[in-house]
């Protein structure tokens, strides 16, 4: 079965098992390695991407769910790293090891798309499922607020 989708704005056909985790297709088939493998059980958020603007965890999402839809990974958030969240992430020096940060940014982007001016509580509620083993949570919240102009 061939899966047709738009990957970061480009039309794309994937001839893979429809039950393959989307994360596998993104990293191993399409070579987009910005999205990370963390737990494989939707528990950590490192693999967060967007399907039609909704944050999903690619490690448990079958490729078939993306058929006919638009997928955005960290590589597609902006062409040159100029998305407000990416700029804020740099300005706040948010990452430590950096492994979880693509997922953090994609979750934050989904939040700001629906709530452009979130409260601290709303940021915490939306981001609490994205785990950072370095404990950069305070800087993550600061960067989200900065990107939101708060």
């Amino acid at each position, binding site marked *: 079965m061939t899966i047709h989708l738009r990957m970061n704005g480009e039309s794309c056909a994937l001839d893979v098992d429809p039950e393959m985790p989307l994360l596998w297709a993104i990293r191993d088939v399409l070579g987009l390695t910005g999205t990370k493998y963390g737990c*494989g*059980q*939707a*528990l*950590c*958020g490192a693999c*967060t991407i967007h399907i039609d603007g*909704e*944050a*999903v*965890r690619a*490690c*448990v*999402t*079958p490729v078939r*769910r993306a058929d006919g839809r638009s997928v955005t990974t960290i590589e597609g958030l902006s062409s040159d790293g100029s998305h407000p969240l990416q700029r804020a992430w740099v300005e706040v020096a948010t990452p430590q090891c950096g492994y979880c940060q693509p997922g953090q940014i994609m*979750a*934050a982007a*989904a*939040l700001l*798309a*629906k*709530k452009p001016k979130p409260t601290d509580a*709303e940021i915490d*509620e*939306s*981001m*609490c*499922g994205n*785990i950072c083993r370095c404990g950069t949570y305070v800087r993550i919240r600061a960067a989200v607020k900065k990107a939101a102009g708060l």
Partner: protein
Amino acid sequence: MPPRSALCTAWTLALASACAPTPPPPVPPPPPAPPNALLPPSAFDSIEGAPERSRALFMEASRVLFHPRCANCHPDGDAPTQRDFERHDPPVLRGDRDRGVPGMECTSCHQDRNAELARVPGAPEWRLAPRSMAWARKSPREVCLQLKDPARNGGRTLDRVAYHTEHDALVAWAWQPGSGQTSPPPGSQAALGALVRAWVATGAECPLAQTTDGASL
């Protein structure tokens, strides 16, 4: 000395009382079903009064309603539970539409079917029941009254309540919960649907309120 007619009446009454057929003893309720099964509606046919039979049917159906596969997503707060009423991991909230918050929707993780290798349960339209349909920490009577109230049950008629239990895909999931869950509820979706249909047909009576000493009101 009493008049002759009064003596005659008393004698007749005494004789009639002595000769009246004694009423049959009440039929005991059916024995409980095995833990993994539900009794069929016919098991309650021996209960004579329709209200009593209706209440007994609901109590049997409530064995499913209060099972963790169902009640986990009928919380009395904003966070569901998982497995046997454990905290949901990762922490999630119901949000404005009972489907999570931006960036952390139910369907961020839950697919339209179980993800067996990842042990993440899934079914179409995965979501929380609305606050008005909270079951956790409620009594069978309270849940029964909620189910009958269109203001709290999503505007459903009793027929639609029965249809929901018979056909809803999210209800069906409870009996196919996947490898990440501990156990399904007793019986089957069809068995639950039959009980709810019979409950509706017998008047949809709710269990009686209990006093503090356990008596029914």
